[in-house]
């Protein structure tokens, strides 16, 4: 019962977020600030993780391909597939649920606890539009983060493959170019857009509707990470079923 109520509140929040827009000159600043916090601020960790996980994926594929009849280019092929289809869009989104999600929940939650949201409301400002909408717009840039993750993942694989002596550069390049299905990239970016929306709204929901004090802000951040991840994993399953099979 309580779950149904929460889901209802969540959807009402999304409707309310688009109503009574804040003045553009103020909104523009908020959007730029959120782009800096949420997108630019995440590039470092995303680049780092993508590069090294790409390398690990390649090494493990290479070690499992010990049959001499299989061409070495399969290493590149397998790396590309797992990174574009799954690793970059989904795995990075889970990491972002921890990084960006808990940041959003705790910053909005702190504003709730210290009555800053009440102060906005009392001034006649639509606080949901003021707080959540700029995050949503900033996260429409999230696919760029994922493109970078894809590139660096494959690049990390290349370095690990060539310098680890598992295959030559030519074999790896042939691998990543073979049997390329453009729709797989479309599929990955459709997922990315959906996850971006989830990353902006679920943590905001947990921050905005929290009650209590500083301790509850911490609890809300944890709950927000758990729920964002759960929803991302479930939607990942549903979207894959719908788009790929």
């Amino acid at each position, binding site marked *: 019962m309580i779950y149904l109520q929460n889901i209802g509140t969540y959807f009402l929040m999304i409707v309310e977020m688009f*109503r*009574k827009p*804040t*003045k553009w*000159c*103020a909104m523009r600043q908020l959007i730029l600030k959120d782009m800096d916090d949420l997108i630019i601020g995440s590039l470092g960790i995303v680049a780092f993780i993508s590069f090294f996980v790409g390398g690990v994926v390649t090494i493990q594929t290479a070690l499992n391909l010990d049959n001499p009849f299989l061409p070495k280019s399969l290493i590149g092929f397998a790396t590309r597939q797992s990174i574009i289809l799954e690793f970059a869009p989904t795995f990075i989104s889970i990491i972002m649920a921890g990084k960006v999600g808990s940041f959003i929940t705790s910053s909005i939650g*702190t*504003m709730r606890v*210290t*009555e*800053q949201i*009440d*102060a906005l*409301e*009392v*001034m*006649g*400002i*639509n606080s949901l539009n003021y707080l959540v909408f700029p995050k949503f717009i900033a996260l429409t840039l999230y696919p760029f983060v994922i493109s970078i993750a894809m590139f660096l993942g494959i690049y990390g694989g290349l370095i690990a493959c060539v310098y680890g002596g598992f295959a030559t550069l030519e074999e790896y390049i042939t691998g990543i170019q073979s049997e390329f299905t453009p729709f797989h990239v479309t599929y990955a970016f459709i997922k990315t857009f959906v996850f971006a929306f989830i990353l902006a709204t679920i943590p905001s929901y947990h921050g905005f509707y929290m009650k209590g004090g500083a301790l509850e802000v911490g609890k809300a951040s944890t709950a927000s990470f758990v729920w964002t991840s759960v929803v991302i994993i479930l939607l990942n399953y549903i979207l894959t079923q719908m788009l790929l099979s």
Partner: protein
Amino acid sequence: MIDVKNIHKSFSGVEVLKGISTTFEKGKTNLIIGQSGSGKTVFMKCLLGLFDYEEGTISYDGKIFSNLTEDEKRNLRAEIGMVFQGSALFDSMTIAENVMFPLKMFTKQSKSEMEDRVDFVLKRVNLIDAHNKMPSEASGGMQKRVAIARAIVNKPKYLFCDEPNSGLDPKTAIIIDNLIQEITDEYQIITVINSHDMNSVMEIGEKIVFLKDGLKAWEGSKDNIFKTDNKAVTDFVYSSELMKKVRQMYIEEKK
């Protein structure tokens, strides 16, 4: 005029407000006093529509608040200035940006006009060199004064202050009290102040509503609060030695 009729409010079954009715008039400083925990803050938040109440009506100049649409509520609230008990400054903005915020949101003034207005109100609350500090770098009393500056910067029609001078030294407290009274008189606005400070009561209590245990126990002005025999009020007002002496002198003066 703000007209309050029979407000009931409870939190998970515990009734905090048990039916409060009163009116707040234009151009007067209305004080709500009462012990800590008597429901002053809850009452003020009900007035502003930040809390839903189970029973009763609140009308602003004839318009019943709970019957307004969301947009009408927001338009009404654009004319409200509020000082929260905990200041509620936006901690991502500097002090000057905090004060400028309502102007930026609701007026079409140029940047220099807004800056002039911000300088003016910050001067009125006795803050001249704190423009670029962040709220976290300001003292509690400074934060309070910034909150007051932010509440009055856009010349509100209704001003609500939840303990505007708690945490201030006596001298600054009186400056703030007088400022609120001047503004109320100058712009003929409706001002509602929560307080438990007897100095404020004596300075600016043009109308006083005394809350006790969620009920309105007494109502009057600063002139007759010293004369009343209402037990609840005398207990509250004459709790300190100083006030007991004041009453003694008052009674002797009358003789």
